[in-house]
């Protein structure tokens, strides 16, 4: 039997194989940047990395972790770094996140810079404290239908030094159809005094890569890596009255700050904590904060439920959290005392809160917030 019908496919296959080898060879030549030196803070630290990766991941491989809520997908704009060397013009993917001043000052998104040549970088000293931690999930508890409390015990390193209000980036491993690691930022809900176990509050985002994993696959006993501590949302001042305003999972950093204050006996300040939820079933930690009120006379917990139509027994504040804030600023909070505000929640809630606060003469500079975007 003649096998001549195999000749054509064989020739095509052979040509394809030769082409693939040539392309791989050219790719190796063109994209082989060799070893590249990164000089940090005027040569105070010099590291050698293999060229070709993003600056964000090249630094991470050397255990220098820049904040990044999206893990390098140019969607959070957090991984900013000053690159003193010329790495070309700013990319379109960087532009939405940089001000004109930042661009003039050579600030770049490290996830968008490919390391090809030696670079001069400036990295704030405090970022060197950020580390990768291996943890074990010790507890998962449903707080509301779409909110979970996650407790993670630190395994390596076993302890963390952080400030109340800071956050961590969970490193979500590939799962199902998701072929790459994903990083997402979650505020630490526990206080710094608890330095070997961290608490988080995670809200389910429909279709969210990280929260889908956390709500459907993560279980007690699993390991989870994270990078921490990150962020500069923290307690300021010493004597001013504090107005804390949060909604949903915005509870986390405020809880961390308040329990840290309580543990460290920073309890002379008047503190008003307004916590807004949509319906009674969305309210959580109510007893925890009522217990804190009993121990701390100048602390006031004011939950506000927007829609109480399903609970006729509710006797607290109703309507939006900003309405509760306005009620208290009008009638219950001493007007003469200087005030600070700490806000965490959706941009809508934060913008509305700022409007109310400034209308009651709280200085914009005394309003600290952790916006959700």
């Amino acid at each position, binding site marked *: 039997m003649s096998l001549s019908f195999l000749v054509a496919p064989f020739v095509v296959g052979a040509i394809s194989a030769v082409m693939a080898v040539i392309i791989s060879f050219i790719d190796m030549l063109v994209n082989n940047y060799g070893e590249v030196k990164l000089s940090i803070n005027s040569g105070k630290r010099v590291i050698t990395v293999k060229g070709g990766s993003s600056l964000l991941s090249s630094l991470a491989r050397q255990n220098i972790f820049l904040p990044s*809520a*999206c893990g390098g*997908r*140019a*969607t*959070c704009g957090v991984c900013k770094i000053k690159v003193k060397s010329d790495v070309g013009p700013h990319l379109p993917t960087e532009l*939405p996140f940089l001000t004109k001043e930042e661009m003039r000052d050579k600030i770049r998104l490290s996830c968008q810079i490919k390391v090809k040549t030696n670079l001069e970088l400036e990295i704030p000293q405090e970022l060197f404290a950020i580390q990768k931690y291996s943890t074990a999930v010790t507890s998962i508890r449903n707080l509301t239908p779409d909110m979970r409390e996650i407790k993670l015990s630190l395994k390596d390193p076993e302890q963390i030094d952080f400030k109340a209000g800071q956050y961590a980036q969970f490193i979500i491993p*590939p799962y*199902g*159809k*998701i*072929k*790459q690691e994903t990083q*997402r*930022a979650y505020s630490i809900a526990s206080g710094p005094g608890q330095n070997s176990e961290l608490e988080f509050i995670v*809200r389910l*985002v*429909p*279709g*969210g*890569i990280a929260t*889908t*994993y956390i709500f459907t696959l993560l279980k007690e006993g699993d390991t989870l890596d994270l990078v921490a501590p990150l962020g500069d949302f923290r307690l300021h001042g010493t004597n001013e009255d504090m107005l804390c305003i949060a*909604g*949903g999972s915005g509870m986390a950093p405020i809880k961390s700050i308040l329990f840290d204050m309580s543990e460290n006996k920073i309890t002379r300040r008047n503190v008003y904590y307004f916590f*807004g939820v*949509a319906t009674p079933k969305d309210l959580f930690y109510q007893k925890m904060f009522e217990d804190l009120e009993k121990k701390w006379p100048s602390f006031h917990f004011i939950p506000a439920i*927007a*829609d109480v139509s399903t609970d006729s027994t509710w006797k607290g504040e109703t309507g*939006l*959290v*900003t309405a509760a804030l306005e009620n208290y600023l009008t009638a219950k909070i001493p007007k003469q005392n200087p005030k600070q505000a700490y806000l965490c929640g*959706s*941009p*809508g*809630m934060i913008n*509305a809160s700022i409007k109310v606060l400034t209308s009651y003469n709280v200085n914009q500079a005394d309003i600290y917030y952790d916006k*959700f*975007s």
Partner: protein
Amino acid sequence: MKMSPEYKQTALQMQPGIITAEGFLGNDTRPLVDIIQADEEQATRLNVEWDKIAGHLQELYKAGKQGQERTIEFIGKWNVKVDESRGLLPCPFKDGLFHKHTILVTHKPSGKQLLFSELSLHLLEKHHFLQGKGSSFRMELSEIKTVLDL
């Protein structure tokens, strides 16, 4: 219809795990251009205009945001609830970043609901892409027409 390299690249961005866990194509096996073309033909048949739909949905979204994640009533005919999560999502067509906001609109007279995100509203408005069949955020034009009372 044959897909251009740009559409092929966009379709890759729409796969599960690239931008969102589920992706944008659901269990739809049609090429991206065919999904869009079929919906454009359906819009013509139903006599609905993309700009008009997008304008209505934007109006409901804007009103819903005022509710700070609480359901609000809009001109007596719709209930709107906007949920906001941390972060941004890039458009798979690479022309913008969008808040992780989900909007649930209930048409009170019919009880019919429409769920969409800030990104899906952009995909509808700029790309006439309503997502693949089986996607959680797939919007059917007939449902949009009912909910918006067009």
